[in-house]
């Protein structure tokens, strides 16, 4: 027992020795950005973090916030929740961050929400779309969690309504990732809505992340001859699925999916993806979005993740503006400010927060279609009953 106690105490001392104690109210305003810098999801996390820093530099050059500079404290989730929780706790204890921005993964944000609640600082997700990020199981809202993007239930509805009402498709098959909360959720919301409208989901097949061969599932799907193949998955899997589906002889089937899509997939499966539809939060052709994207690519290694780049930029500016409007960095004050913002100006448009769900009201989706080597804007879409 003594040995263990000694060992534990040594570790304690090591950690405390390595700590740096946080700043006060005259130094820079520190804002934490939670993103995946290592692991599979770093393809989104790195651009988001770089953009956040870029946005901060711009704001500082224009005079900063409340006379102080803002500083982005980058927190690495290591693509897993336990590490993310530690990262946030460390930044809170050592750097006195006033808010957490990001990440784009629901599971991680749900885990870190209790840390932010305890520290009394708001957390605004970038693209975490699961319901539980802002709303508890019993329906109550999480006071310190927010997001500025739409949720999966909405996204599922958009896909179902667009397919049924605009494209007049009545049968669909779904191929989803059993281990992804995003994929599983979106599948359920799509099916609920599609069936309610009168469509039929002829079958749902699953795979596990890491799988590269989907032909067993696709063969079964094609034997049912659905009009639509709905794939609520991420872009690498999308390219492989579609390539293999074409190889198996899929024709005249509409392909549609959610915001896991990315222009990068066209480099991998361009010819096979022609004509497919994707739901996104913003369009790459929107001039403001395109402008920020260009700025990013000029400064950092080129990245195709225009949506994440836009969102990081929007969030940093949003929190900066909220702090300016509140006149303070006090947690409770800015929390209330975010909760009650109405038609608040953000980088591209305005935002009105729903105090009951901490989700933005009236966020419509954007439908894109793969044409040539790009995802082209088709329409803004808000499902109407």
């Amino acid at each position: 027992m003594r040995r263990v106690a000694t060992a534990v105490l040594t570790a304690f001392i090591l950690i405390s020795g390595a700590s740096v104690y946080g700043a006060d109210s005259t130094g820079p305003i520190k804002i934490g950005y939670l993103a995946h810098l290592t692991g599979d999801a770093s393809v989104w996390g790195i651009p988001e973090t770089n953009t956040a820093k870029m946005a901060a530099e711009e704001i500082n050059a224009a005079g900063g916030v409340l006379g102080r500079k803002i500083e982005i404290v980058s927190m690495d989730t290591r693509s897993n929740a336990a590490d993310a929780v530690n990262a946030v706790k460390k930044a809170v204890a050592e750097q006195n961050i006033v808010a957490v921005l990001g990440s784009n993964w629901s599971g991680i944000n749900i885990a870190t929400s209790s840390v932010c609640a305890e520290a009394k600082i708001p957390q605004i997700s970038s693209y975490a779309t699961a319901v539980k990020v802002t709303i508890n199981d019993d329906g109550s809202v999480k006071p310190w969690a927010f997001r500025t993007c739409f949720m999966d239930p909405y996204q599922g509805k958009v896909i179902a309504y667009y397919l049924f009402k605009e494209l007049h498709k009545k049968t669909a098959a779904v191929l989803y990732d059993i281990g992804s909360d995003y994929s599983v959720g979106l599948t359920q919301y799509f099916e609920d809505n599609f069936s309610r409208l009168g469509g039929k989901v002829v079958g749902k097949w699953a795979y596990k992340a890491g799988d590269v061969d989907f032909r067993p599932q696709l063969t079964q799907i094609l034997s049912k001859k659905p009009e639509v193949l709905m794939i609520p998955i991420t872009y690498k899997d999308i390219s492989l699925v579609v390539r293999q589906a074409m190889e198996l002889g899929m024709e005249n089937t509409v392909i549609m999916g959610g915001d896991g899509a990315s222009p990068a997939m066209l480099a991998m499966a361009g010819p096979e993806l022609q004509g497919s539809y994707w739901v996104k939060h913003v369009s790459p052709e929107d001039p403001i979005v395109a402008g920020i994207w260009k700025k990013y690519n000029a400064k950092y290694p080129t990245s195709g993740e225009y949506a994440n780049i836009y969102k990081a930029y929007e969030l940093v500016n949003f929190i900066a503006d909220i702090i300016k409007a509140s006149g303070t960095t006090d947690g409770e004050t800015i929390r209330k400010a975010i909760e009650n913002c109405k038609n608040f100006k953000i980088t591209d448009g305005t935002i009105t927060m729903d105090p009951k769900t901490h989700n933005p009201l009236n966020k419509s989706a954007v439908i894109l279609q793969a044409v040539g080597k790009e995802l082209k804007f088709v329409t803004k879409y808000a499902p109407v009953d």
Partner: protein
Amino acid sequence: MSTFFQQIINGLSIGSVYALIAVGYSLVYSILSFSNFAHSSFLIMGAYTGFFLISTNLMPPLLAIFIAMLVSGGFAMFIERFAYRPIRAKGGKSLYYIIASLGISIFFENFIVAAIGANYRTYPSLLPYKAIKFLGLRISILDLACAGIAIFFLILLEFFLKRTKMGMAIRAAAFDLTTASLMGVNVNFLLSIVFLIAGFLAGIAGVVLGIKYTVYPQLGSLTTKAFIGAILGGLGSLPGAIIGSICLGVIEACTAAFISSQLRDLIVFLILIIVLIFRPNGIMGVYVDDKV
């Protein structure tokens, strides 16, 4: 059930890739009696090297692939010389080999992520991504080419093992390393050759996987399926590795199609356990006992 034959084709296609990987792995196992988990690193090395060489357009693709194989073969020899040989010199506990190979695979995969990036890269299309229609079944041209490559190399390996002096030495060493060395076989040299071959096979497997499924650092995780295939067929047996892998591919395809795509890996795992209960040494049942 009308899709049954197509699923068999799908399974054969998946299985043939596992087989190519499993053979290299089994070769090392049959001689050193340890699982080289770094096999995935040789595979990634081949995949990335092939990708970069072909992308530069400086040479015909076949030459690029050949060089990729040489590079991964060389990498394998390097690992053997600097990681495994010292362990063997100190007694060679199987546990140590497992851990060292694990460390190498963690190091290498993360090195690629940190140094080159986690982005997915696509091989320029070397072959049409189309399928042939045959009796109502669809067989992809890419699959046929990959299966062809796999068969070619396996035949080459068979020839090497059965018809050359070096091959005979390897087979002797697989039976009993100590006695083979007493017979005058230069064990160090032999092991280098074995790893060179294993690296070759991993390299070509890497290129094939890269073409079929794009190149990314976690590509090596497919090797665990190959290991399971090798176990199913019987560790230590090369034909076993091939048969086990192909069976695994077919079982996976049929399970996903007809039983449950959600629980596929669980069911495959249960099948593995059941096979191990009734045929403890796998399908081919080669038991290389410990000599006392």
